[in-house]
């Protein structure tokens, strides 16, 4: 998280830390057996990674004291529409992890709500993105072992598309923005999600109840002026989520 704050203990109890072959990623608890994350964190150039290579940690804000007994997913369910061999197409960047044993929720481990069906995001509405990804110190990316969060506004889709198009003119390998994505961030930069936050929630709240609007997916650099973070729009995948959970 760039430009954010340390999260207090139990403040984001749905936050999940994934450790996958030594890489960090994020996720969010949505039910007592299910964790929602980004598809790209669960794939490699050889295809989907093995579930026993995915370690799951919950209820933490500091990972200096990682519990020795991590949770391993019973199964990995990557959205069938996610096809991103060259890491240039993040459309459908969404995946589910199913746990073998149900969680018992507590003050530090709780699910986040899913969006209502048909809900849309309003430009400028603030959300919170959190994660254990890299942070910054005097314009340098540094590792952090603390859960951080930052508040970001939803960005107009066309403004975001234009910023990406400008980037593509310089670098044709820049991914495209699809309708399954939305952008959040400040045009002046300085506050953003970053590497290691992928899969973490972009949450919004109504009446002190948080719901997951997006999944940290991709971006151009982190916190750079004129670019925004791109998030998978969860509202577009409610039927797939429900179907996957019901069938498993």
């Amino acid at each position, binding site marked *: 998280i760039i430009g954010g704050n340390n999260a207090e203990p139990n403040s984001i109890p749905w936050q999940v830390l994934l450790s996958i072959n030594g890489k960090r990623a994020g996720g969010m608890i949505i039910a007592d057996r299910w964790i929602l994350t980004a598809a790209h964190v669960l794939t490699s150039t050889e295809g989907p990674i093995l579930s026993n290579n995915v370690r799951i940690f919950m209820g933490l804000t500091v990972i200096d004291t990682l519990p020795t007994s991590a949770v391993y997913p019973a199964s990995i369910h990557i959205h069938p529409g996610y096809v991103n061999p060259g890491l240039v197409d993040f459309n459908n960047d969404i995946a589910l992890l199913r746990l073998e044993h149900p969680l018992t929720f507590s003050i530090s481990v709780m699910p986040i709500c899913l969006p209502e069906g048909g809900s849309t995001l309003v430009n400028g509405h603030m959300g919170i993105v959190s994660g254990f990804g890299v942070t910054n110190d005097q314009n340098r990316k540094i590792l952090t072992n603390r859960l951080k969060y930052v508040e970001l506004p939803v960005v107009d889709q066309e403004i975001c598309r234009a910023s990406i198009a400008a980037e593509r003119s310089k670098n044709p390998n820049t991914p495209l923005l699809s309708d399954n994505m939305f952008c959040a961030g400040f045009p002046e930069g300085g506050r953003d999600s970053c590497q290691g936050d992928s899969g973490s929630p972009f*949450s919004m709240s109504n009446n002190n109840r948080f719901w997951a609007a997006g999944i940290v997916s991709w971006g151009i650099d982190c916190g750079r002026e004129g670019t925004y973070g791109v998030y998978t729009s969860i509202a577009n995948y409610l039927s797939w989520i429900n179907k996957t959970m019901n069938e498993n």
Partner: protein
Amino acid sequence: LLETEPQMYGEVRSPLYPQPYAPNLQEQWDLHVPEGFQIRITFTHLDIEASAGCHYDALTVLFDGKVLGKFCGNENSADGNHPGSEPLLSPGNTLTLIFKTDSTNPERHQNVGFLAHYQAIDIDECAAEPEEDKEPLCPQICLNTLGTYMCSCHHGYKLRSDQRTCVLSCNDGLFSEPEGHLASPGYPNPEHQALTCQYIISVPAGFTVSLNFSDNFQIESTITDQGPECLYHWLQVTIPGRGTVKLCGEKSPGLIDTNSNTVTLDYYIDSDGWSRGWSLDYSTHRVECPFPGTLTNGRVTPSLSRYLYRDYIYVRCDTGYKLMMDGEELPSFSAMCQSNRQWHLPLPECHITDCGEPKMLLNGGFQFLSGMHNQYQSVIEYHCNEPFYNFLGGNEVHFTCDPDRRWRSNEDLIVPPTCLPVCGKSMNPLTGHQR
């Protein structure tokens, strides 16, 4: 005809009937039915030349040579002697019919003769008055049967080998019917011979015998220094386990409840003296069992003022209670009053039912609002581990232990509610005061 097997019924008709009969006829029919029966003959049609005294043509009916009737003419003729439709009855089991015609027949009217039917009629020998100076057929009891009769004797007598007369015999009186009548031999006439009679009334266990002596009671007593005693004539009543009592005198003992299912009566008189004897009606009653008692949280049915042998009682517990006996639950209970005046089972008890431990609630629990030990009418309230779980809106969380031993909600649910996770509620929300 006599040599043939006797017939029970038959038909007789004149020669050529219903064609006119011929002159100069003399036909005879000898009818014969079995012994003990008599013959009844009915003329269905008779048309014989009419004449005064049936002098020319006639049908003569005879029994044992005696003329029972001589008939001629027809139903409408003024002359002659027509038998009409009334039957003729022979005194015995034979009857002779002789049909005789003269040499001439009337020219204008051709007589056709007769047609008659006969049948055997049982003779009620017992109803017959004895002939003068002769003894009745049976001195005591006469029983008419088909074709014959049988003699029988009153109790205290048995039939002699002549199958007619009776001889005193009063030692084989066993009475096992639920009620009956007994009397001393010859009662109420005095016997002028020594008697030693025994009567045993024995009914199944569970019944008691009551003796009800008639008022006309007379057994000779002997006056001694100590007053009247039953020295030479007596009726001894023996009740097992309760000793004996000798009865005599002229005062009827009236009603005696023996309280036993077996009673022995020994009647003794010597050849001297003068006793008319006694008679009694006996009846039986079922023995009584003690009142079964009352039951806490249950009731005994039926509610009777007395409980007698073979009566059944049933026990039903109040709603929410169960039948228990010796630590075991009974599906039902009934007990019968036995012949030994005891119930065959003691009364059970009614214990309050329980629903067992309520079903556990995942991520929740329950607490008792009322009652204890999961007993009938206990009320529990389920709760979820809040604030992390809660019920769906409207979920019924109060469950009551019902009579069918199930925990049930007011909405008739037996499955406890489900605790659903609460989503999106941080206990330590991200708030900051900096601007």
